[in-house]
């Protein structure tokens, strides 16, 4: 359905002193989602997950430059095509609940999303979709400020699924939610995948996303370090190939809570070699001078010399 190859995003900005500056915020992203799959993109805050979503949809700010290749349904995605397919064939569940128009009633916002996705105005079934996500009918008459956090997330889910989009990119759809509400929303996403949609689940909550994901793509400092099947995240993580993936797995409370020492490097001061080298306990000389290439593994790929 969707595959991303060597995707990089850079920003040009003017520093104080008005020097022009380029920041490479994501580099060489690799990713693939198939029909019926939930692929989780896991990584810590600021690793470039939202930028990936925005790059796929073509809604990055004007000072961003994208390079690399995005394929959707077998054809390359160009800016022109993005305008045509966003909202219709691919839909976003945005990260912030501030993405709802503060002065428009919920029902109208869902209807508008439906119309934009290509449904005729009087065929948009707002009540149906509200009910599907467990929202009371009168939600349609409410304004965003009247919604609870959980309701707002469900409304965002509704706007993305009122149409017939085949790919749904969910950016932190369960962020800040209680266990109960979160697992409810996750199960809806799983259900959508089972109905034949492709779901890209962006999250920094690895353990929850493992509940529904088929595959996990691990992000670190603006690049993908590993793609593994969800089943690889088990036991002590022996089936994981990248040291960071393993560290991430072991940092979870149920696995002993072993934190990774050190912090993610600042994006404009990335190390020359492997981005994880400063924190890796297996670093060799070559790691410091050369970026590790993508190497296939049994469940996906890895970007490490010593996998």
């Amino acid at each position, binding site marked *: 359905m969707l595959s991303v190859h060597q995707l990089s995003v850079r920003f040009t900005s*003017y520093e104080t002193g*008005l*020097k*022009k500056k380029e920041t490479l915020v994501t580099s060489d992203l690799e990713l693939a989602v198939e029909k019926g799959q939930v692929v989780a993109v896991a990584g810590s805050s600021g690793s470039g997950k939202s930028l990936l979503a925005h790059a796929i949809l073509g809604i990055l700010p004007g000072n961003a430059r994208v390079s690399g290749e995005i394929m959707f349904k077998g054809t390359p995605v160009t800016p022109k095509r993005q305008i045509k397919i966003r909202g219709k064939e691919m839909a976003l569940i945005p990260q912030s609940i501030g993405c709802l128009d503060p002065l428009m009633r919920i029902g109208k916002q869902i209807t508008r999303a439906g119309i934009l996705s290509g449904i005729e105005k009087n065929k948009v079934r707002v009540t149906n979709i509200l009910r599907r996500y467990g929202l009371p009918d009168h939600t349609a008459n409410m304004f965003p400020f009247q919604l609870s956090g959980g309701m707002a997330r469900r409304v965002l889910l509704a706007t993305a699924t009122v149409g017939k989009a085949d790919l749904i990119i969910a950016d932190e759809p369960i962020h800040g939610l209680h266990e109960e509400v979160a697992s409810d929303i996750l199960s809806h996403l799983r259900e959508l995948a089972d109905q034949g949609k492709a779901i890209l689940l962006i999250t920094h909550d690895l353990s929850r996303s493992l509940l529904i994901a088929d595959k996990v793509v691990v992000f670190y400092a603006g690049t993908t370090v590993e793609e593994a099947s969800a089943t690889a995240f088990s036991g002590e993580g022996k089936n994981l190939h990248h040291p960071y993936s393993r560290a991430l797995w072991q940092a979870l409370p149920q696995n002993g809570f072993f934190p990774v020492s050190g912090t993610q490097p600042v994006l404009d001061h990335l190390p020359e070699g492997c981005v994880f080298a400063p924190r890796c306990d297996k670093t060799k000389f070559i790691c410091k001078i050369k970026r590790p290439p993508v190497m296939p593994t049994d469940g996906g790929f890895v970007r490490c010399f010593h996998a």
Partner: protein
Amino acid sequence: MKTVIVTYKTILRNKRLTTILSIILCILVFAGLSIAGFTISEKGLRTDLEERNLSPDACHIFGTDWLGRDMLTRIVKGLNLSLKIGLIAAGISTMIAVMLGLCSALFGGMVDFVIIWMIDLFMSLPHLVFLVLISFAAGGGAKGVVIGVAVTHWPALARVIRAEVLQLMNTEYIQIASKLGQSNTGIMTHHLLPHIVPQFLVGMILLFPHAILHEAGLSFIGMGLSPHTPAIGIILSESMRHLSTGYWWLAVIPGACLLFMVKLFDILGENIRDWVNPKILRG
């Protein structure tokens, strides 16, 4: 990469250059206008019935009016008068604004309350109505216009200055200075004045257009300068009576010159503001 930086710096320097150039240009125009006002011969103001209602030509580039007076002379004199009145009125207004704004912010309490109330009061009456009232109180004429324009233009600027000073007072370095025992006057002269002086300058220049336009408006409706003065408002009000005759230049040119001067002040004010860069609103 290097070339990019260089071009950007060049643009930056050019921006500063254009700012300074436009400031100089504006000042030159005003200087030229004043000099012209002094040197231009009074002859053009004299009635010359042989040269009546001439449309613009080489001899009278702005034409002549129904009494044969040269329009260029009248306009130059008129603009000079506007300049003078604007200068006095904007100067006084700015002074009032700075004083009240400062007092309001520095003393607070009752003083602040009274000043805010005054600002409120001044803004509760349409500007022009207030001007008519004051002009009436002063018995009309130049005195009425100057007083009127001077005492009604301060509220907006006073508000800006009050807010600015309050914000400054809350900044850390002034708080620290006062904790360190620096006297109030010391804080005034060392920390507040350097911020207020550019405000004063820019505020005054930006008040100019308002003052000039209100003077012209007041003269136009007949409540301002006396009918014998060569003022733009008077010229336009007289030409109202000759509109139907087709002597378009009597109305079009003086107004265009007024607009030109007002715009020039706007440009001057904004460029100086960009240059000294205080955050100031239009008065």
